[in-house]
């Protein structure tokens, strides 16, 4: 059963590609923010702890859609001012940049908690062993802590990525031509809303399934050498 797409098939494929690009760039930004947030929240300095805590609490308490709108419409003056300083006239955020920042910010806030949990789950003995071997603080984090955090944080990050992928639909509100926006355009032309939104839903389902399979393999690779305990 293949629905008649009225020639909008290639547009939907282009939209899917845009969704994938948006999801992956937001993921990259969100992972960095989450890692920084977790380090701030577990740091010995009270100021950094407060900063990390405030970031994750405030960002998680406000809807994602509001972040998208706030960053796209709310920073017009700020971005123009920055552009003026750099000598660029009429600097403005593109919908893609604004969407990446907003979704990355939200992903990072949740990832902060996931990474913090993983960081706390690593036995202190490992850090002490590194110190006893004469490794620098830097090396201990990069060679001992981070690779182990990856394995512990992966299931949580996988869930967050599924949420992120569905949240990319929100960026259609500010006009980025991803799946939803392309479907809306197709609906205006064809007057068949149910067909096209159902096709969009099906594309999102496929993306979710692909992400789930990918996560399964990543988790298996990260967990090699570990025996999985039965639930």
């Amino acid at each position: 059963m293949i629905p008649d797409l009225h020639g909008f098939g290639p547009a939907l494929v282009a939209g899917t590609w845009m969704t994938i690009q948006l999801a992956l760039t937001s993921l990259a930004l969100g992972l960095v923010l989450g890692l920084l947030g977790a380090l701030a929240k577990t740091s010995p300095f009270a100021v950094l702890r407060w900063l990390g805590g405030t970031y994750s609490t405030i960002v998680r308490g406000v809807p994602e859609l509001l972040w998208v709108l706030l960053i796209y419409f709310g920073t017009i003056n700020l971005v123009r001012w920055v552009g003026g300083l750099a000598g660029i006239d009429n600097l403005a955020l593109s919908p893609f940049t604004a969407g990446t920042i907003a979704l990355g910010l939200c992903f990072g806030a949740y990832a902060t908690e996931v990474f913090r949990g993983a960081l706390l789950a690593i036995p202190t003995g490992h850090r002490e062993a590194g110190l006893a071997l004469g490794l620098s603080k830097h090396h201990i984090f990069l060679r001992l802590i981070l690779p182990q955090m990856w394995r512990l944080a992966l299931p949580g990050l996988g869930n967050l990525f599924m949420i992120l992928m569905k949240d990319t639909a929100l960026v259609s509100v500010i006009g980025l031509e991803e799946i939803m926006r392309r479907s809306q355009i197709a609906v205006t032309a064809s007057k068949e809303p149910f067909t096209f939104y159902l096709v969009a839903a099906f594309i999102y389902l496929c993306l979710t399934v692909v992400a789930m399979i990918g996560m399964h393999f990543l988790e298996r690779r990260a967990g090699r050498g570990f025996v999985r305990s039965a639930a």
Partner: protein
Amino acid sequence: MSWEVLIRWLPSFADAAWLTLQLVGISVIAGLIFAIPLGIARSSRKFSIRALPYAYIFFFRGTPLLVQLFLVYYGLAQFDAVRQSALWPYLRDPYWCAIITMTMHTAAYIAEIIRGAIQNVPPGEIEAARALGMSRSQALWHIILPRAMRIGLPAYSNEVILMLKASALASTITLLELTGMARKIAARTYLHEEMFLTAGLIYLIIAFVLMQGFKLLERWLRVDACQGR
């Protein structure tokens, strides 16, 4: 920050917050009622009973709420049968569309919470109930469900906060809830930063109050005391 403008629009924000609370309140309660049979069926041992709830949950968790909203609000009008049915006055109204969609969406997530909770009820307690001569349905009503409720409550409170944030999407089908109202006022006054930040602050306050409410509920149901195994 222009305080006079903000104070002038504050009554509109109050109306919008009330609409947001209605959307969230109705959908999480109706969703819970709808999710209980769904979750019980989902945790069944028989594949034939498990399959349909599984497909439902897979669809609603695998697609964005925005798509689901558009499918119901814009999509259903494609069919003449729907437009001529008795339900059309409701399905034409964005308010009811938002409530129906959010209810179906959250029911899928709550059903998964209920399934997890039911499967985490210690089997010894169910066996004890059966050994005392309770029938299967008696054990379900008096032992499994009250116990699962306490196990699932923290996850349910998370889901309520997530729905509070998801309710912002109702603005895309023309409803003037908090986000929609902020957009409307921002478009009229050109004060984008101020209006969106105000809306964000109101969301934070609502989320904070809800969390405190659930903390009280957890204390009243003595959730902590039940967790010792």
